[in-house]
């Protein structure tokens, strides 16, 4: 087991290296760079462009130099914790995304936990009581959940909370805490705001995973080992939870890999609608304005989240399934 985990951990290094190259190539793909659009903006505003300042920036980031030199400068910076400078915000990228990334991950983990806590029991119920009224009810609800986009739920929820309770549900903080330094009161305020975006983000995932869990478990329930357990005299509930659910979880944990980044990037529209200070909206504007170091940092973070998610999936799978552990 330890060897397997170590092997997986080592594989992360080349994977992330390749991802960093691809990320850099992608942010380089649009014609021109940030400076050209920066100069264009200044000139269209009738301002004089200071050539010395432009040259200094160009030299600092190696713009105009060969791509691999630019890449090298970027990677060396990233490794030492310097993700470059956001041209648009005129601040270091690290300062910009640090807190947002933390909030995004907190939000993602909260909604992931919500997804699991709700979809697992319902999926099990739907499979064990297949074609019961309860199963039909949850099937209907989960198809609605799958079909309706998250941001629509967000809008409906905002309108409902506002019209019924006069409550503004946007943002992750009350106005008085938004720019305040972190304190216990701010954490509590954050937690009280967290549940609405977490719930909105979770709805699609819940609906999807109910279907997956139901289908997985329906595959397992007729298997012979379930009959064996029954023939031993086990009670139906403990039997279902110990054997088929355990096996049905295997494909379930392998979805963590893409659930984690999905929750981060899938939240862009919801974050815009709910006015959440997460990385999603920031990535969107960074891409629109060719703010390459900001966009690159966020893309890299998302990719690393995918790799970490996959790593967690693999390790969990090996822990759950001896056939993988001992192959």
């Amino acid at each position, binding site marked *: 087991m330890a060897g397997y985990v170590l092997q997986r951990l080592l594989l992360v290094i080349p994977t992330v290296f390749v991802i960093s190259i691809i990320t850099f190539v992608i942010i380089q793909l649009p014609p021109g760079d940030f400076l050209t659009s920066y100069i264009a903006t200044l000139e269209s505003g009738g301002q004089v462009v200071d050539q010395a300042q432009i040259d200094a920036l160009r030299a600092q980031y190696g713009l105009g130099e060969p791509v691999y030199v630019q890449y090298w400068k970027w990677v060396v910076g990233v490794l030492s914790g310097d993700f470059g400078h956001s041209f648009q915000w005129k601040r270091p990228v690290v300062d910009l995304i640090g807190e947002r990334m933390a909030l995004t991950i907190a939000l993602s983990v909260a909604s992931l936990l919500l997804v699991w806590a709700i979809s697992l029991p319902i999926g099990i119920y739907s499979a064990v009581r297949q074609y019961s009224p309860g199963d039909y009810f949850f099937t209907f609800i989960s198809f609605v959940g799958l079909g309706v986009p998250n941001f629509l739920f967000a809008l409906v929820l905002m309108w409902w909370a506002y019209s019924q309770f006069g409550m503004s549900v946007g943002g992750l903080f009350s106005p008085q805490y938004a720019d305040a330094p972190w304190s216990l009161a701010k954490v509590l305020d954050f937690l009280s705001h967290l549940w609405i975006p977490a719930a909105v983000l979770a709805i699609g995932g819940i609906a999807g995973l109910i279907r997956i869990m139901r289908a997985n478990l329906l595959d397992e329930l007729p298997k*012979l080992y379930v009959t064996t357990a029954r023939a031993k*005299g086990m009670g139906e509930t403990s039997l279902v939870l110990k054997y088929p659910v*355990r096996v049905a979880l295997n494909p379930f944990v392998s979805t963590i890999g893409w659930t984690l980044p999905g929750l981060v990037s899938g939240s862009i529209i919801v974050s815009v609608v709910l006015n959440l200070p997460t990385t999603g909206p920031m990535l969107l504007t960074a891409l629109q304005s060719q703010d390459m170091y900001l966009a690159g940092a966020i893309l890299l973070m998302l990719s690393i989240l995918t790799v970490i998610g996959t790593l967690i999936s693999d390790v969990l799978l090996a822990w759950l399934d001896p056939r993988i552990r001992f192959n």
Partner: protein
Amino acid sequence: MTDQAMPADMLLDVRDLRTGFALREGYVRAVDGASFHVRRGETIGVVGESGCGKSITARTILRIAGTSDDSLAGKVIFRRSSGEVTDLLELPHSGREIRRIRGAEIAMIFQEPMTAFSPVHTIGNQIIEAIRLHQSISKEEARTAAVDMLRRVEMSSAEKRIDAYPHQLSGGMRQRAMIAMALVCRPQLLLADEPTTALDVTTQAQILGLIRQLKDDLGMSVMMITHDLGVVAETAQTVAVMYLGKVVEMADVKSLFRDPKHPYTRALLASIPKLGRRAGEPLHPVKGMVPSPFNRPIGCPFHTRCPSAMPGICEKSMPGKTTVAGGHTVSCFLFGEGDKAEEQSA
């Protein structure tokens, strides 16, 4: 409860058992009036082609067939180890009572030891669980009992193998582990559903020998379900031949092989290739196809394939059980229409 009275040496009495499934294509009468009995310490072979209802019969005895309670008819009378006589069909199928019997008094082993174990739990985990379901002992004691049982089924290095996962064992070893799990609570009756079909011939013989030996050691009865008459000849004292959900002939093993009565039994015996058969000599399969389960023949179910079918009789009604010799009964009009009712219940 007079109708549940049984002779003292009788362990299980299955009387006119019926069950089936409602499928989209129609209702399948999987077991359609099967009657047989199992005596204490005896091995009964239940033989028949695939789909004749052998496995469902065994699973219905344990009430794990997954059929609806409405489809059940007949009686499955079992003498519990307490001496109490119970009709298993009257117990709620997931109630405490039947669960106390499952595993502890009647255990079952299956054809596919690979799929019969959970792939993600060690065999030790699954055997210890079987013990602790029926006995309130500590995990350590249960583990010792499990290792003992694994040794009894001749599992080499049982202390190590107990922590193995099913995929780490060979087919024969898995079947040994399965037998250990079934017998660890010392049941009175073992339902063996084609336990050697998935194994190669050498292993098959070992497993059959093991079951026979454990049967004698533990003093239990075995219901050996198989389509292989060789397995029956090797293990059973009594044989019940099933065709389309009915027991068409029941006899002790010698009478059945020496003097088979029912045309189906004769056809089955004739279909076995004999040693010393000349090359190129044709095999003698049972003629025709098993009728569709949705469209069972009226009358004797075998009349559509029977070489001795009597037109005007066999397709009209089902013959009753006729005693042709002591302990040898057959359901065929060639031998009579059936014993009189009072003789049958005697």
